[in-house]
């Protein structure tokens, strides 16, 4: 890039500066923000093309495309921030389709007056998450709106991946008799956000589980290519995810409450706030539905990965024209695990 006119201008003040409307106006200030902040962190050969879009090599196989908007509040929370969350969330959407994620795009909506130091931290975290995942952010966009029109920063990301050969997973493929597994403890992300919002302190702090799961999922699919359904357990928690699948697959489910992993801090926080961990969001957990004969192999594959160590077999798929997710409670009684009503925790991701 040969831009002598820009070379000697004063750098943007990443320590004390603020986003202003010129940073989204298409002029020199925007070019400088992109160069000194976004490209500095996210830089890769595709982004360096510097054109309106990225030119990518041809991929072999069927493509999977997923997109996700992130509006979480607060922007920084125990275990993560909106930056890494926006990478993990989209990569996981691609991965649970049975695909290997290859590229990401990102668009930012910034509020006039947003501290550049916060933006720098967020983009650095995003870049770290993308590097850890081995998936580059190949193109992006930035807009700035007047103060009060957004809450600090919103980030939309899109992920592109290639479907693995021989894999056919869908929420519509859960079959009667199938085993239902979760990859770990439920509710960590939602309660980390909630305790940050409410200023709750616990002996062992609750940390978001936000993470990219495609590596764990790849290991699972290598071991058990017969998996019928994969889904990341995000908004609405385990309850919403399983209810969706029951509707899609025209089945019911029976869960064993005692088998569902929940950390004691999350259980305590939920108790305090009147929430149910089964309705609380996760950002680093999946459910796996597979034929019963492959359940132990799937459990082994999940538990063999650092992000799935606490994976557990939590129930099975059964016939039910009403599509109920039922659960045997810790006391031996039966109940439904219903869809959540209303919004338990707004702006969780």
């Amino acid at each position, binding site marked *: 890039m040969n831009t002598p006119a820009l070379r000697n201008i004063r750098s943007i003040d990443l320590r004390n500066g603020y986003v202003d409307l010129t940073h989204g106006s298409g002029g020199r200030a925007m070019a400088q923000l992109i160069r000194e902040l976004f490209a500095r962190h996210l830089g890769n050969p595709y982004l360096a093309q510097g054109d309106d879009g990225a030119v990518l090599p041809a991929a072999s196989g069927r493509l999977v495309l997923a997109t996700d908007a992130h509006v979480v509040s607060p922007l920084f929370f125990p275990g993560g921030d909106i930056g890494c969350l926006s990478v993990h969330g989209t990569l996981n959407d691609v991965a649970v389709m049975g695909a290997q994620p290859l590229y990401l795009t990102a668009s930012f909506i910034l509020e006039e007056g947003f501290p550049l130091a916060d933006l720098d931290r967020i983009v650095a975290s995003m870049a770290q998450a993308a590097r850890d995942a081995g998936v580059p952010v190949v193109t992006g966009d930035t807009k700035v709106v007047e103060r009060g029109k957004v809450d600090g920063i919103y980030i939309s990301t899109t992920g592109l991946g290639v479907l693995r050969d021989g894999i056919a997973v869908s929420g519509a493929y859960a079959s009667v008799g199938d085993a239902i597994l979760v990859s770990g403890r439920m509710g960590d992300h939602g309660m980390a956000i909630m305790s940050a919002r409410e200023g709750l302190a616990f002996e062992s702090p609750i940390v978001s589980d936000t993470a990219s799961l495609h590596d764990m999922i790849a290991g699972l699919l290598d071991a058990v290519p017969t998996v019928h359904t994969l889904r990341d357990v995000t908004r609405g928690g385990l309850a919403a995810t399983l209810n969706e699948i029951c509707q899609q697959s025209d089945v019911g489910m029976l869960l064993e409450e005692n088998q569902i992993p929940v950390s004691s801090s999350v259980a305590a926080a939920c*108790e305090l706030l009147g929430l149910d961990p089964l309705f609380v969001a996760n950002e680093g957990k999946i459910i796996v539905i597979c034929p019963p004969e492959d359940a132990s192999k799937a459990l082994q594959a999940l538990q063999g990965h650092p992000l799935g160590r606490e994976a557990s077999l939590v129930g099975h798929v059964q016939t039910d024209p*009403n599509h*109920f997710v039922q659960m045997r409670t810790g*006391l*031996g009684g039966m*109940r439904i695990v219903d869809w959540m009503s209303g919004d338990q925790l707004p702006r969780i991701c």
Partner: protein
Amino acid sequence: MKFVDEFRDGRLASSLVAAISHDVSRARQYRLMEFCGGHTHAISRYGLADLLPANVQLIHGPGCPVCVLPIGRIDQAIALALEKGVILCSYGDTLRVPASGSLSLLKAKSRGADIRMVYSTLDALQVARDNPSREVVFLAIGFETTTPPTAAAVQIAQAEGLQNFSILCNHVLTPAAMHAILASPDRVQIDGFIGPAHVSTVIGSVPYEQFPAQYEKPVVIAGFEPLDVLQAIHMLILQINQGRAEVENEFTRAVTREGNTKAQALVSGIFELRDAFEWRGLGSVPASALKLRAAYRSFDAEIRFGQPYQPVADHKACECGAILRGEKHPRDCRIFGIACTPDNPVGSCMVSSEGACAAHYTYGRFCVAAAG
């Protein structure tokens, strides 16, 4: 989770269930009313009804604060927010209660009303401090458990000279509602009460002593954990079998006979009895609710904004009234689960997780589907 898991222990539950099964007389029915929504929720959440013998029947009572609030009370709050432009602070459960004109506080909010969900009356006071140029009204609802925090807020507001804070007072009294149920001429047959948990921590067990004396009904005060409920059921069954009618306290870890006298003094210093109050389901019940004492009238939003209560009839098909009186079960309502769901409630019992309809819809409706 210490001090919680112990009260949800599956093995202890099985032995309590075995004791209940052993002690019930096959020759009779046991119709037990759990007064509180907290009990209703625990019973549904843990599937306790499944564990009981068929002749032990649990009847859901009216102890769900948002359920017993008549439509006109929510209308008042919406009018204050939409027409008088106040900041209305409310506990979360109240936001979705259906009001007149297809509104609820949540829908009024989407139409521009400034409605804030708070976890504590202290949050509402803070909203008032932070917005000195706005009027801030706290929608005060609930039984004796939530009354002391409201009283404390009024006391603090007065001490601070917080001129822009007031309350819309809908605090109601548990014993009065139990009377109304037992004194009703066409009342449902009840053999005993599972008595309130949190309410009793405040009022103690003395106020229930009139029920064995006057109506020969046993009352066992019970905590909200599933083992509390099972143990209380067992204690009630033993009383009934032995022909006793007494107030017993299962929740001794939190409830004393006298209750929290400090909270009682605070409440009676700030509030006094209303002559009567209209309850959803129970109608107008004498001496069943509180209003601010004359010295605190300036904090009464009804007076400050000239927004008196106007009664409004319930939806014609809604059975909330009969369900709150224990006469009907949610499954007896024609619109249950069809026109009335937690996402689009018609009646108040479908709103709060403590409401009988919401609890049955959320946790128990598979039983009806299986039977039907």
